[in-house]
């Protein structure tokens, strides 16, 4: 079993926490997330043109690049994280261009060496992910890394099988047709879409975009295998800088408690 499958095999839902690499003290921020109960870490690779992200994560990308973060730095954060936290799944999330710059093969090998478990590439859809010289999925799978795909409210029944084909680790359900940030989806729509995906796949489904509070996270955890929180954490990194770890811990603890106990309350 991989770290990802082990985590999602647990009876309780998983809390997936996103921050941008190189935005503040990355090692300290990551440790804070893990200590406070994050089950999976999503580490954002900064990109100059984060087209699918709202203002919070855009700013984090610019802060990170402004501080001089390179691809080598991101891989080093991952390597060091793996040494400190041998069991916690680590997923890199980002955009195609930085990932394929030196070729998919190079990236997959480097990520595998850094102990990365999964990769989410926002802008390589399944249509471009098999026979092109820049297909990332095949290279990742060859190195034992899960290509994690996104499904959205616009992913209709006809497309879903294509999205699922070759997906590993978990499926990331983007609950709003929009960019990352503050917009929230109705729980009814999330529940229906997760159920729809689950009919076609055995993959765990994690739900993200617009999840900010423990209450929202708990509601989603009742109907999904994982809850992803990003912008709310990234905003803390931006606002508190070096003092971010303590604040990250506060929010993450509350989120973790809400997510981990969501189904118990449900049953009661």
């Amino acid at each position, binding site marked *: 079993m991989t770290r990802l499958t082990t985590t999602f095999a647990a009876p309780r839902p998983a809390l997936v926490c996103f921050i941008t690499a190189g935005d503040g003290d990355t090692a300290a921020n990551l440790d804070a997330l893990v200590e406070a109960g994050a089950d999976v870490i999503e580490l954002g690779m900064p990109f100059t043109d984060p*087209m699918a992200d709202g203002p919070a994560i855009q700013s984090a990308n610019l802060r990170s690049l402004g501080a001089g973060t390179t691809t080598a730095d991101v891989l080093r954060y991952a390597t060091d994280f793996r040494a400190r936290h041998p069991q916690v799944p680590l997923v890199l999330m980002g955009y195609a261009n930085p990932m394929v710059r030196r070729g998919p093969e190079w990236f997959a090998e480097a990520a595998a060496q850094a102990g990365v478990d999964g990769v989410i590439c926002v802008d390589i859809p399944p249509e471009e992910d098999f026979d092109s010289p820049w297909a990332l999925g095949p290279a990742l799978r060859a190195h034992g890394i899960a290509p994690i795909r996104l499904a959205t409210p616009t992913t209709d029944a006809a497309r879903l099988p294509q999205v699922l084909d070759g997906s590993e680790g978990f499926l990331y359900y983007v609950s709003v047709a929009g960019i990352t940030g503050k917009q929230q989806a109705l729980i009814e729509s999330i529940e229906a879409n997760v159920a729809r995906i689950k009919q076609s796949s055995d993959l765990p489904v994690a739900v993200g975009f617009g999840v900010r509070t423990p209450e929202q996270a708990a509601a989603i955890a009742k109907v999904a295998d994982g809850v992803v929180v990003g912008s709310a954490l990234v905003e803390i990194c931006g606002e508190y800088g070096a003092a971010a770890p303590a604040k990250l811990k506060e929010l993450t603890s509350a989120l973790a408690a809400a997510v981990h106990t969501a189904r118990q309350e449900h049953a009661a």
Partner: protein
Amino acid sequence: MNTPLNSFRTQPDDRGHFGQFGGRYVAETLMPLVLDLEREYRKAQADPAFAAEFDDLLEHYVGRPSPLYFAPRLTEELRLLADSQGNPGGGAQVWFKRDELNHTGAHKINNCIGQILLAMRMGKTRIIAETGAGQHGVATATVCARFGLPCVIYMGAEDVKRQAPNVFRMKLLGAEVIPVTSGGATLKDAMNEGLRDWVANVHDTFYIIGTAAGPHPYPEMVRNFQSVIGKEARAQMLSRVGRLPDLLVACIGGGSNALGLFHPFLDDPSVKMLGVEAAGHGLDGDQHAASLLGGSPGVLHGNRTYLLQDEDGQITEGHSISAGLDYPGIGPEHAWLKESGRVDYTAVTDDEALEGFQLLCRTEGIIPALEPAHAIAAVTKVAPTMPRDSIVLMNLCGRGDKDIFTVAEKLGVEL
């Protein structure tokens, strides 16, 4: 044995690939939309009523066909150069395709007419667009006013400053202009913001992309709408001089005016083509916007193409005196035409473009936009090296009213 004619006009394939370039590199939220757009575009292409309405608007609203014009005094001036530069008795005839005479002052409107007709066919009720120089924004605002649709234009805050007259025009036309402050606050950042808006408003919004870039089917669709330029020019040349030109020249931002001129000629082997990128302060530094000559392949804004980027794949900010050429990418078809060797590409600096700008004002009484001023500068270099009976046809794709403030400032004149 007969070698079959290897056509350059059959790209892209059904996945939007021009060789290894192009494609649909977008987030999953947008994928169903671009697939839907392609289906609807194919239906429109097969519908004679769509073509008829497009042609009618181009004729009566845009003012097409645009004239094909022989530039006698510029030709003479360049022949003097030919004499002094070791090609005595040489110097090609210079002809212009006058797309600067279109309604709104540039070629951009050709594409906007096509896309807004498609938007209405699809039942979309809100239009968004990005703009650099403001020409595409003005053209989009214009067609939105013409058809009564609300219009939001994303424009880099830096360009809002450089192109104040166009910002005012868009507002007069009823558009909302949103200055984009992220990144370098120029065209690429405006395009990011356009894509973000589209993702968030997928149900009612149509994104009118202004150049032959973006995810499939945009590069093909924009090229096809702009091909009216080359189709007209080809027929006009044949009827005026009874033969095809020897060389086509066009400036390149994203590449739409160039493809519009080039595409109908691609399978005419005698016709050479030259695309002109913006060399800014020079190709040796990083202050230029020449993606083909100074960049490398990558993925941005939905397609694989040549980009200005660093070794980690971070996009670098281009520079050009012309806001319409200041884009770190280029349409994927140009990337393919370059690799296939069918089209040559060169680059022209800010200073050379400024000289071309003034030369055309002085010799022909035409104030060009700074974008085609780059093409003029290239023509002044290449025409003098050609024989006297040869013909250069340049796309004069925009007029310079919008640029007089920039030019005045560069020339040290206070307005």
